[in-house]
């Protein structure tokens, strides 16, 4: 076999942490063969980015490479002088980072940034570079490349920026392309476009890829081989199809069992219990043993070695075993029809943009020249729905579609511009106790200066629901509901893991015994295994307390897992809604169909039909004429889409689609 493009062997990297060292990756080995794509997957803290940065020589100065080697085409990277490594970077090895919104310099035109490696490494002059930039932009699928080259980053959408960054990375025809979560910050339909692009680039250029991601679905789409990292160690590696189909390491099994899927609706997910180990004091024995459901005594004392692509001595005997399913699963709830708990009618919200002075416009053409007409955006545009007690309504849509604004209006955080909200017969302001909200970001949803007890106890005191020693008792009860023990009472948020913080946030929302909770991307910031656990907690609470949710997410798989009904939102309006099983099956609104097709699923068959949307989401403007989806619709039927508001068609009982196409 020929020399691999990249061979990392026995790499260990440590960061200083307090008094000691924290070993971020230990004994990591992998290979990227010529023309192949290797996916490095792991949850946050698994060391996947550290490995890539070590290869590039871009580790933080305080990091220390303790041992190991990295060879690029047989050349040992760590022994090269800095100047020689600089020559490699952006030239023969290049990288695309996660966040296209911060990776481009806002002060320079995009074209100049793409030209930089060409001028630097290839010694091209400006004119030759400009021609090459245009060619590259066209190659990554950007329409009108000449204009885009002259544009500034803020004039491009997220997907366009990421394409431009990929063009930069490809500029010098690298032999190895490192991609660090390149689609994580993008919407799912844009992600699908970028993945298509990467796939076609692999075919056309034969470039080898090191693809770093937390998303197993993306790995299944793009990568030939996969290397699963946990706590800085490789726990399993092999061909993607084999690993995903028949995972051998318990962690991989757990990770796959934690994934909510659109194709397979389960009552409860099977999460990985426990929390990520403290790498400055790793547990003895197998690093995964505290969370493993197949743990034996030997695992606790004996560190595991990577043998035959898996770091588990029981791998062979566990071959047929599945990750245990959480016990005590409560039978599926039967939908009780008790009338509507939440009723929303023709709800709309218009935001004014800019400050006081942006509202004045000078126009001499007619009448008094000074006019007050502030620029505005219609974030939510005539939405109606209802939620019954104990029902979960999933609201799915891409960023900027107005779903969070809608959720916040329901709990009285934003005043609607028009329309009506009734919660348990009252307005959101009068129903603060009945309607609560859970937020997305575990790091920002808890006040860092307060203990868990005062965070969860405060709503009780505010609404006079408990006093004195009763507060503590009630807080302990609430913590038990989210499966946290009383030991957490005195802790501060920084002492909790992401999942624990999110559960404290849920306990706080539950304190007033609400009948309705808005979950605004409540699990989106969590790692898969933790997300599954929190989803189970939420499902349990619904069953035990009969609380209804409006579950807002951009992730259709999560929504499909937890929701009884789904509403699909696009540019401020609901384009399709109905029972989950109806929405997930044809007939579809073209947008729903595209969303479903865009999800990178681990078990997608290669034949699955791909529906791609044109372009990116158009800018949010004022009133829409015709169908709001017309600009991106792959099934646009003609002029009628541009002129007439689509009719709402009833595909089945309670399944509504707003589209000109007949169902």
């Amino acid at each position: 076999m020929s020399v691999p493009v990249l061979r990392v062997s026995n790499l260990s990297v440590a960061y200083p942490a307090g008094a000691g060292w924290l070993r971020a990756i230990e004994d990591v080995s992998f290979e990227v063969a010529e023309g192949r794509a290797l996916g490095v997957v792991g949850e946050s803290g698994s060391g996947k980015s550290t490995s890539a940065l070590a290869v590039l020589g871009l580790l933080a100065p305080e990091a220390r490479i303790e041992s190991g080697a990295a060879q690029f085409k047989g050349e040992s990277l760590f022994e090269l002088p800095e100047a020689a490594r600089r020559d490699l970077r952006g030239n023969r090895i290049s990288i695309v980072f996660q966040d296209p919104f911060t990776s481009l310099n806002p002060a320079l035109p995009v074209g100049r940034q793409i030209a930089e490696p060409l001028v630097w490494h290839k010694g091209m002059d400006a004119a030759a570079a400009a021609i090459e930039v245009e060619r590259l932009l066209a190659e990554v699928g950007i329409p009108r490349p000449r204009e885009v080259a002259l544009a500034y980053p803020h004039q491009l959408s997220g997907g366009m920026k990421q394409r431009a960054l990929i063009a930069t990375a490809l500029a010098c025809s690298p032999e190895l392309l490192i991609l660090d979560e390149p689609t994580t910050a993008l919407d799912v339909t844009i992600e699908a476009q970028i993945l298509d692009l990467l796939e076609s680039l692999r075919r056309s250029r034969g470039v080898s890829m090191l693809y770093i991601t937390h998303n197993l679905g993306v790995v299944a789409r793009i990568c030939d081989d996969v290397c699963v990292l946990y706590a800085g160690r490789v726990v399993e590696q092999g061909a993607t199809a084999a690993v995903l189909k028949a995972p051998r390491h318990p962690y991989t099994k757990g990770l796959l069992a934690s994934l909510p899927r659109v194709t397979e609706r389960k009552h409860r997910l099977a999460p990985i219990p426990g929390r990520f180990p403290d790498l400055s004091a790793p547990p003895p024995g197998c690093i995964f043993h505290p969370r493993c459901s197949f743990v034996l005594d030997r695992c606790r004392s004996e560190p595991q070695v990577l043998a035959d692509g898996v770091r588990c001595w029981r791998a062979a005997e566990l071959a047929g075993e599945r990750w245990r399913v959480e016990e005590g699963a409560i039978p599926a709830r039967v939908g009780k029809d008790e009338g509507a708990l939440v009723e929303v009618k023709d709800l709309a919200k218009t935001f004014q943009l800019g400050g006081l002075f942006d509202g004045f416009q000078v126009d001499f053409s007619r009448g008094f020249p000074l006019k007050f007409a502030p620029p505005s955006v219609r974030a939510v545009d005539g939405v109606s729905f209802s939620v019954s007690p104990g029902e979960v309504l999933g609201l799915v849509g891409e960023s900027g579609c107005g779903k969070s604004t809608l959720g916040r209006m329901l709990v009285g955080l934003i005043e609607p511009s028009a329309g009506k909200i009734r919660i348990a017969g009252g307005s959101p302001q009068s129903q603060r106790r009945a309607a609560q909200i859970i937020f997305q970001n575990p790091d920002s949803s808890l006040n860092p200066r307060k203990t868990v007890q005062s965070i969860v106890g405060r709503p009780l005191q505010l609404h006079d629901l408990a006093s004195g020693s009763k507060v503590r008792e009630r807080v302990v009860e609430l913590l038990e509901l989210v499966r946290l023990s009383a030991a957490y009472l005195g802790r501060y948020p920084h002492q909790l893991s992401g999942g624990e913080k999110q559960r404290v946030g849920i306990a706080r929302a539950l304190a007033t015994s609400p009948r309705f909770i808005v979950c605004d991307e409540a699990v989106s910031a969590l790692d898969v295994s933790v997300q599954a656990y929190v989803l189970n907690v939420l499902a349990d609470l619904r069953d035990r307390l009969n609380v209804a949710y409006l579950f807002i997410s951009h992730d259709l798989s999560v929504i499909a897992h937890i929701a009884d009904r789904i509403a699909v939102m696009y540019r401020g309006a609901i384009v399709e809604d109905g029972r989950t099983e109806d929405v997930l099956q044809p007939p579809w609104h073209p947008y729903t169909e595209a969303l479903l097709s865009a999800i990178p699923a681990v078990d997608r068959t290669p034949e699955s039909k791909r529906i791609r949307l044109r372009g990116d989401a158009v800018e949010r403007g004022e009133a829409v004429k015709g169908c709001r989806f017309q600009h991106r619709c792959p099934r646009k039927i003609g002029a009628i889409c541009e002129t007439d508001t689509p009719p709402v068609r009833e595909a089945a009982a309670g399944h509504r689609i707003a589209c000109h196409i007949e169902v």
Partner: protein
Amino acid sequence: MRWPASLVAGGSVFALIAVAAALGPALAPYPYDGMDIMARFLPPSAAHWFGTDEFGRDVLSRMLYGARLSLLMGVGATAVCLVIGVPLGLAAGYYRGGIDETIMRAIDLLISVPPILMGILILSMTPPNPWKTAIAVGIIYVPIMVRLTRSVTLEIASEEFVLAARARGERPWYILGAEILPNAWPPIIVESALRVTFAIMLGAALSFLGLGVHPPASDWGLMIAEARPFIVEAPWVAIAPGIVLCLTVIAVNLIGDGLREVLDPRLKRGRG
């Protein structure tokens, strides 16, 4: 609870200076205005520990007398600036819109007048007195405090725990006082420690213009300013008050650091 070392060190140095200021007149070996033309510019000696100035006055005694005024200027002005600036900044950052616009434009107005001019404006209307100088200096620094507090508040007010508080129906004063302010303290404390230093110096500048302390009384800033023409022949006249001023500044900053540590649960050790 363990006290952070910086708080202990800063606190004890500051306490020492404060005690010296309080007991100043009793400790001073000479009267602060006791001139002795024969003893001009004496270098430090056993009789005059820090030497004498151009009128033969004992530098140590003048420093002890001046300590009170200097501390009043530094701490008093900073207190005034905090009391006015922090609530305005909180309100501007939390309510945004019209309230923000009104407060910030008023602040712009205040900031557009140079500090010394502003001091003259405030102080020339009524007969000068050290208290009023301190208040004037405090007002001069209000814009800085408002802007700082506002920017911190803007950031914290968009955090989800503030939204959660609003969603459960908390009143604005609770959100500002119990949710936002505790998280806004660290930068405010750092800024306040800096303000103490600047206030002492600005107070001295105003005194130099006859708008604060009146000669022959003095404070440290004024002593340094008065010693400037003789800095080559008699450096000790400026150095001694300079050193105590430095010590005070360092002590105040250490206290600031220590307070930050005490107030931030993330920096506490031995828990969890």
